[in-house]
């Protein structure tokens, strides 16, 4: 067990592209850290550099206080679980799990004992003599985990280990991975592009984009206090609503109407030297059916036609489209591209709200909706910076 320190770690490829730009990250002993970001953000490259499968172009990597930049993977004493599981198809489950121990020239009885123990923990005992080809996806995944844990390494690296499983199994395995990590107390670095996995698994989450760290913090901090548009839009499902907003004399004009600027917001806007055009961000759960809110006076109430109601049983997702067009910012385009659909250009902005199940809102009708103004975030559209965070302590590390 050991801590892992990345000190200005950079990766450039021979063709001139830089995948990772000087990352600083300290992972404490026993910590479960998640690297999350859209594809191509450098998270897997970072993981491979920690593993030793990719050379570090510049900067320093320390594991347990020792510089390991030039050490081969086998001398770093870390285990890795691959997205494809990378089980050796010519070996049985037992041989797969025993492989690292055999290479370490461990005594036969010792190997048998350790493999037996790991198999028991992962409920693989009755499959030990089968070949990977005859196992189900979940079983293969567990074998891959088993191969990592038998060796009691200093750290585990996991590269999207659950992404090949079906949705139900993924949730199940997520809990198992989490429990296993707590049980073993081994430092773990976990890469995923799924923000739900990142939020539920990690002690700390590292959001990356384009080879830069965006924000590092515990899941709740990332959710409540995102440092920029990208983090705000990436974390949370359904994601935060972004709307164009204009600062006027005493109000903030947004598609739902004019929000009064209170002292706090005014102070923040002045302090940040904010432009007049802003992006307003608000999460779906900060809306409510106005009929169900007691202190409606505290927030902002508006009326809008309902597009669609999705009842989840516990809540209702209600979709509105409001006049005024979607917010425009470079960060938002990145997010849309990652979500797979560069949104159809539209002169109306879409608004997703999460209302209580008791709400009687119907599709096609007008609805009165209450919005919690205290929870809005204001972003500078050019830099993506979250202006509403300024007065408070900076939440985690914000890199360029």
């Amino acid at each position: 067990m050991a801590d892992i320190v990345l000190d200005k770690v950079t990766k450039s490829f021979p063709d001139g592209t830089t995948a990772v730009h000087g990352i600083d990250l300290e992972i404490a002993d026993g910590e479960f850290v998640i690297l999350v970001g859209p594809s191509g953000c450098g998270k897997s490259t970072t993981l491979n550099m920690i593993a030793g499968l990719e050379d570090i172009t510049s900067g320093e990597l320390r594991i347990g206080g020792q510089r390991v930049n030039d050490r081969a993977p086998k001398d770093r004493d870390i285990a890795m679980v691959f997205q494809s599981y990378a089980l050796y198809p010519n070996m049985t489950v037992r041989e797969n799990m025993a492989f690292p121990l055999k290479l370490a020239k461990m005594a036969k009885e010792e190997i048998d004992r350790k493999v037996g123990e790991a198999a028991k923990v992962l409920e693989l005992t009755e499959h030990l003599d089968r070949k990977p080809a005859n196992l189900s996806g979940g079983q293969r995944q567990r074998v891959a985990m088993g191969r990592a844990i038998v060796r009691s390494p200093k750290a585990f690296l996991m590269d999207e280990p659950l992404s090949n499983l079906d949705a139900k199994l993924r949730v199940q395995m997520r809990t198992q991975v989490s429990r296993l990590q707590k049980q073993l107390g081994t430092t773990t670095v976990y890469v995923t592009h799924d923000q739900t996995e990142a939020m539920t698994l990690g002690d700390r989450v590292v959001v990356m984009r384009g080879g830069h760290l965006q924000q590092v913090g515990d899941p709740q901090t990332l959710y409540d206090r995102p440092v920029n548009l990208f983090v705000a839009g990436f974390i949370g499902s359904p994601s935060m609503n972004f709307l164009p907003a204009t600062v006027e004399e005493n109000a903030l004009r947004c598609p739902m109407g004019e929000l009064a600027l209170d002292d706090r917001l005014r102070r923040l806007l002045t302090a940040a030297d904010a432009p007049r055009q802003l992006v307003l961000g608000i999460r779906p759960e900060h809306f409510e059916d106005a009929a169900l809110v007691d202190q409606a006076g505290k927030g902002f109430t508006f009326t809008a036609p309902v597009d669609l109601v999705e009842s989840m049983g516990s809540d209702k997702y209600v979709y509105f489209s409001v006049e005024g067009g979607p917010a425009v910012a470079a960060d938002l385009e990145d997010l849309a591209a990652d979500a797979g659909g560069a949104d159809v250009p539209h002169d109306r902005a879409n608004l997703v709200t999460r209302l209580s199940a008791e709400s009687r809102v119907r599709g096609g009708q007008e609805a009165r909706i209450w919005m919690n103004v205290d929870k809005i975030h204001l972003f500078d559209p050019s830099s993506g910076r979250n202006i509403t965070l300024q007065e408070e302590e900076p939440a985690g590390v914000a890199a360029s």
Partner: protein
Amino acid sequence: MATLDTGPRAKLKWGLLDAVVVVFALIPVLWVVSLSLKTTATLTDGNFIPREWTLDNYRLIFQTDQFVRALINSIGIALISTLIAVVLGTMAAYAISRLDFPGKALLVGVSLLIAMFPQVSLVSPLFNIERQTGLFDTWPGLILPYITFALPLAIYTLSAFFKQIPWDLEKAAKMDGATQAEAFRKVIAPLAAPGVFTTAILVFIFCWNDFLFAISLTSTEQSRTVPVALSFFTGASQFEDPTGAISAAAVVITIPIILFVLFFQKRIVAGLTSGAVKG
């Protein structure tokens, strides 16, 4: 993939078609077998099934030093060439499929060029070179050009096999504590084995069947291989028709190939389909 019609009529149709192909391919072979079993007197009677059976032709060829010596040459030269070509080819193919090194495209291009080069045009230069260097009419004198022409074949077949092996396996082996060499030996090589066997068979057949180099670069029994020795066959006496003996020898030299293929058949089939099944 379109679903195949597997009704009885379709089966009959395909069965007939297969039979035609098999008969077409096998008739010359069977004819040679038939000739080898005929007596000299009935050689030219035109019967497919010999009227008079005899094994004299086989006895004859094994009594002549010429043939036995050529058989030893053939086996030795083909085996050595195959071994070297497969070992070198495995290493080259592994590098080509796994590593990015300067000049990779050039290497692949050149090996393709060699494979396409008409061998005939190399015969005279090789003849001169080998006479100057003293390689003419020796085993190495044949092994070297065989390796040259077998290597591109080996590299191409093997790199296709290596490309099917997920790179993650190698990374996993490294993470599990293997050195590059151990990762190759314990993880990659066993998975590439079907490819290696397939390549070995193809290369062996190429070396075994070669006539052009063998006749141009040899002059005595010392290194003459069977295909060439066959063409120098005469009967027991000058006036005897050697057709029967040649046929017998032709049958004998197909046997190693048949054995080789039968022995590795399972491996070849596994090799050819290994990409289709998810490991």
